[in-house]
């Protein structure tokens, strides 16, 4: 494998520099927000830049065959997310910065591990057990937060096991389908039903939707069977109707989506505030620090995109969507580059998780689809989401390196 071409390398360096520049400008601006100069955002931004530069050059030195774009893209998104957090709530931004650091270390570790250790013969049953165990743990030990029982509460932080389950579920799908056909259909669909059932029990319906559509996409990618795809889509429609009938909060969300203006101070409040924020933003935004994100509920997690939209405008927000799109594009490119079925499907399903999650949450806040509480990867405040997104990108990166080594099915 040839090393990076000098031109590509200079583009990557330039992109890193732009990311750093955006961070510094924004943090200097935010430092003046309260009138007097308060250097906290500036320190945060400097720490971020140091971690980013070290990360970029260290991973390039140690893994010359890696895909540097993954790390740069996620740094760029995290940078924008951190700016928004410093603007909304500096304390959560500082915690997010720590999560970013931890995420980077784990990105590094998971790149290394997936480059060297993922071996094909682990068996899909173990991945299934791991997924099911992770999803069942909050039902037994967990606490209820934001309407769904999917959190494990340790004293100093709370952790969402379904984030980690996304990775094990991806590996489970890839392992089960690595011969490009469904070997034991009853067992396979039974296992998927168990996983979806556990998510529904935790009332994490956004999560259940993510897992369902990822499974459907991967089954279709592996087997190219239109009948399963068709049945799956019909199944999704039926599940939607059943969910509407039996889960109260699904009905609330669907009604708020169809007509949020019916009950503005109540059910439609979130979505209406999000729409107001976006309308306020216009093309160029209000300018950083001049919007009113304090009006939007859950603004650091679910609705961070609306806050970003308000202050960076339609142009900034659509550019952010394109950056996410580029991340997904790199993932699909990696999965096409590798000849090993298991790794190809694993890379694809990690990417599909990203893609569907981004679509669900951005679609939700702009009222394209009903709102579901999933996080916006790398941008929303939240440790589990940040760390797990980094780990799954690390796995993608490891798969990329194996593709460069010419790994095949043998």
């Amino acid at each position, binding site marked *: 494998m040839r090393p990076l071409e000098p*031109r*590509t390398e200079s*583009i*990557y360096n*330039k*992109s890193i520099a*732009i*990311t750093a*520049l*955006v961070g510094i*400008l*924004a943090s200097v*601006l935010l430092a*003046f*927000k309260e*009138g007097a100069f308060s250097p906290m955002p500036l320190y945060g931004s400097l720490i971020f830049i140091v971690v980013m530069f070290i990360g970029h050059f260290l991973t390039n030195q140690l893994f010359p065959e890696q895909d540097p*774009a993954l790390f740069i*893209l996620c740094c*760029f998104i995290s940078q924008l997310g951190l700016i928004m957090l410093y603007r909304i709530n500096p304390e959560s931004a500082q915690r997010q910065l720590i999560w970013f650091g931890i995420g980077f270390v784990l990105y590094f570790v998971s790149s290394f591990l997936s480059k060297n250790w993922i071996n094909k013969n682990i068996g899909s049953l173990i991945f299934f057990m791991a997924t099911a165990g992770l999803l069942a743990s909050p039902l037994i030990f967990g606490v209820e937060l934001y309407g769904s029982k999917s959190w494990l509460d340790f004293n100093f932080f709370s952790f969402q096991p379904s984030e980690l389950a996304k990775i094990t579920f991806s590996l489970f799908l890839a392992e089960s389908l690595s011969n490009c056909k469904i070997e034991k259909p009853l067992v396979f669909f039974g296992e998927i039903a168990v996983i979806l059932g556990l998510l529904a029990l935790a009332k994490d319906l956004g999560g259940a939707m993510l897992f369902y559509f990822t499974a459907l996409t991967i089954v279709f990618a592996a087997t190219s069977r239109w009948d399963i795809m068709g049945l799956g889509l019909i199944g999704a429609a039926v599940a939607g109707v059943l969910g509407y009938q039996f889960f109260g909060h699904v009905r609330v969300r669907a009604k708020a989506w169809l007509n949020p203006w019916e009950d503005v101070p109540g059910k439609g409040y979130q979505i209406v505030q999000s729409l107001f924020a976006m309308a306020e933003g216009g093309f*160029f*935004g*209000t*300018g*950083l*620090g*001049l919007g009113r994100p304090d009006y939007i509920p859950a603004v650091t997690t679910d609705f961070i995109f609306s806050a970003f939209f308000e*202050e*960076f*405008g339609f*142009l*900034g927000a659509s*550019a*952010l969507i*394109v*950056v996410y799109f*580029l991340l997904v*594009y790199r993932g699909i*490119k990696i999965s096409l580059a590798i000849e090993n079925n298991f790794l190809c499907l694993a890379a694809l399903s990690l990417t599909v998780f990203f893609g569907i999650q981004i679509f669900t949450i951005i679609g939700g806040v702009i009222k394209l689809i009903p709102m579901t509480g999933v996080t916006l990867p790398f941008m929303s405040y939240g440790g589990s989401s940040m760390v797990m997104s980094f780990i799954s990108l690390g796995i993608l990166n490891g798969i990329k390196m194996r593709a460069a080594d010419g790994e095949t099915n043998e």
Partner: protein
Amino acid sequence: MFELLSRTLRYVFILLIYYFLYNFLKIMVADLRREKSQPKETGFILQDEDGNSFTLYEINTIGRAEDADIVIDDPFISSKHALIFKRGSKLLIQDLHSTNGTYLNNKKVTRPLRLKENDEITMGAKKFRFLRGEAVGATDGIDLQ
């Protein structure tokens, strides 16, 4: 003061974000171009009676002309004699209005026909066999060319 600064800087931010995007799109375009310029092997080869083999890519022109992908020096072969190309997962052969015609298993090729393993292709006075790449030593033909 802060308001003025922020109002001005928002244009700078948008410019920077789009400059970042522009850089990445440049990389993407370069990637796609590179993929296009590297022809992909299909895993199949053509083998003539003397044992020379020719690797088949996704599009191959066969003929006497120097710029054909597979050059065969034979007086009965036209300068651009036939085309073997990939459609979906299949390889097809098409005659390019050659003087002496192309024959697949002794039948004249008048429209694009699908190639199967061990098919015999006759062009001019030469006979070729359509084989899977692994069936013969993979480097055979390269030494001879």
